[in-house]
């Protein structure tokens, strides 16, 4: 029996902390029209799309950037710091693309080196030490795949970063802003709540990379994107993201201010909910959230026990629905 197809429903219910008033999209049916995977890829990569610092500057009241990994280099492809949302201090970490070719060269097109993830980890620990909620913004084609990255431990840095997020004893909200490219995205992606912009994508390998391997031609990227189900509605159905943040009608790139306003609403609502969760519950809910992902067939096995009531339900003392 195929006992565990992960679906939005299960995951969202287990994490059932998505407030209605944040105008989030939790069902593809809520969308007026559904973009194709390839349209989403193009929207997510639009150079005029708002990137992390643009969003941070608009969403937060004050922001001071913190630099450096304390070991090798300050990686411009990852930015972070301390910000303030309605007087609530938070730690921010995000991948940073450029809005122009020059800026993209300086930001390495949002592809972090290992020292970028090590900077992120330093800030994760800072958040934990001072009980500050952590908000991450994902927007990367992937970790930089060149030789320098290999030499300095791209794989090690990503692995440590995921491990640290999994155990970090402070609330984490993840926002996939644009491109969520593989392990380089997941290094910022282990949270209590994972949100994506309506036109963001998230994938295990770039559509071009997948096409090159399975179709032996990068030109088949469109088919690969569709097959891998990388668009927002797909991710919602798979349970990989908990909800989508709506974008302006023409897409986020047409109105940065409105996009930021929607993100601000979503974040404020999430933080308000999460700060009421006891830390131990937070840690087990985060574990269970990622523990549940699977599509397994196990002959002869008893069906898995139903997941325990979520902390959210217990806290709200409402009956399960």
């Amino acid at each position, binding site marked *: 029996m195929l006992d565990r197809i992960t679906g939005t429903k299960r995951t969202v219910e287990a994490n059932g902390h998505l407030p209605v008033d944040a105008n989030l999209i939790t069902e593809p049916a809520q969308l007026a029209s559904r973009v194709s995977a390839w349209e989403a890829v193009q929207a997510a990569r639009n150079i005029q799309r708002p990137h992390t610092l643009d969003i941070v500057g608009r969403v937060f009241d004050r922001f001071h950037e913190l630099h450096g990994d304390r070991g090798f280099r300050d990686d411009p492809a990852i930015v972070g710091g301390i910000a303030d949302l309605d007087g609530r201090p938070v730690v921010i970490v995000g991948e940073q693309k450029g809005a122009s070719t020059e800026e993209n060269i300086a930001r390495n097109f949002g592809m972090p080196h290992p020292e970028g993830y090590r900077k992120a980890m330093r800030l994760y620990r800072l958040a934990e030490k001072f009980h500050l909620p952590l908000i991450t913004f994902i927007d990367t084609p992937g970790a930089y795949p060149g030789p320098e*990255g290999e030499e300095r431990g791209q794989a090690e840095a990503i692995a440590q970063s995921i491990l640290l997020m999994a155990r970090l004893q402070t609330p984490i909200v993840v926002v996939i802003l644009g491109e969520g490219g593989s392990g380089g995205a997941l290094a910022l992606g282990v949270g209590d709540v994972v949100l994506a912009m309506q036109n963001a994508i998230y994938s295990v390998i770039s559509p071009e990379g997948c096409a090159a391997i399975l*179709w032996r031609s990068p030109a088949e990227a469109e088919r690969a994107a569709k097959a891998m189900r990388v668009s927002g509605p797909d991710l919602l159905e798979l349970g990989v993201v908990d909800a989508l943040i709506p974008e302006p009608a023409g897409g986020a790139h047409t109105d940065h201010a409105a996009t930021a306003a929607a993100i601000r609403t979503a974040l404020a609502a999430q933080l308000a909910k999460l700060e009421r969760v006891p830390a131990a519950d937070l840690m087990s809910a985060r574990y269970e959230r990622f523990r549940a992902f699977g599509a397994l067939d196990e002959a002869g096995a008893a069906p898995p026990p139903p997941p325990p009531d979520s902390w959210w339900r217990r806290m709200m003392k409402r009956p399960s629905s």
Partner: protein
Amino acid sequence: MPFGRKPNEFPSHLWTQCPSCNEMLFNKQLARNLNVCTKCDHHFRLGARERIELLVDKGSFHEHDAALTSGDPLGFTDSKPYPERIAAAQTKSGEKDAIITGEATIGDNPVILAVMDFEFMGGSMGTVVGEKITRAAERALAERRALVIVSASGGARMQEGTLALMQMAKILGALARLDQARLPYVSVITDPTTGGVLASYASLGDIIVAEPGALIRFSGERVTSGTVGEKLPTGFGKAEFLLERGFLDQIVPRPQLRERIGFFLTAFRAASQDLRWSL
């Protein structure tokens, strides 16, 4: 070449040519030598069942979760549907997926062991690999055993999309709990280990060892050259390179693996049993 014979005089079901020293090796002898070239010590890849046999104390292995197989959560099709690919791989290998897990002892130390098999769809990590390793880590935690994972993988399984990617977070969540409980985790990296497997559990052991000459890289060659187009130095991405760059504790020749892992586990266990240091 032995006896001056040409390669085509050696039937391939009987003989294998060493890619490193070109020696023609009699297959049975090669297998007896743990798939290590008798002339130059080149380490050929090794199947998961053979690997388990050489790693654990004789007869101590009991398999877990043997029936677990993958669904098709995305309805994925490239030149053929994903379920057909799985079925073909299962038929060819006799295994259900790219990993075998179970309990055993290594040098009398109780362990949970997970061994990947590159022959099954390139050792790709989908939800079965993710689930079996997670269960392995959870069992190690519940029974206070050490965890030993032998990696051999091309990376995450594209046909399961982001659900394959999520396995990295799922497994590492379990490894975090194991670490917090001060239970040892030994990562053994074999040829080849790349992508999402290297960028998750393979790189996180309390002890990380690799076999000589193993290819160990984050980016597949294709991805690296396609995306960035730089020329790579020789030896780049081999175990010896990673040792020099500080990412491996040791390179251990295959015949010494069991004893070496046993030494470390005994050290870790001896002290942990002694609760005088326990805080």
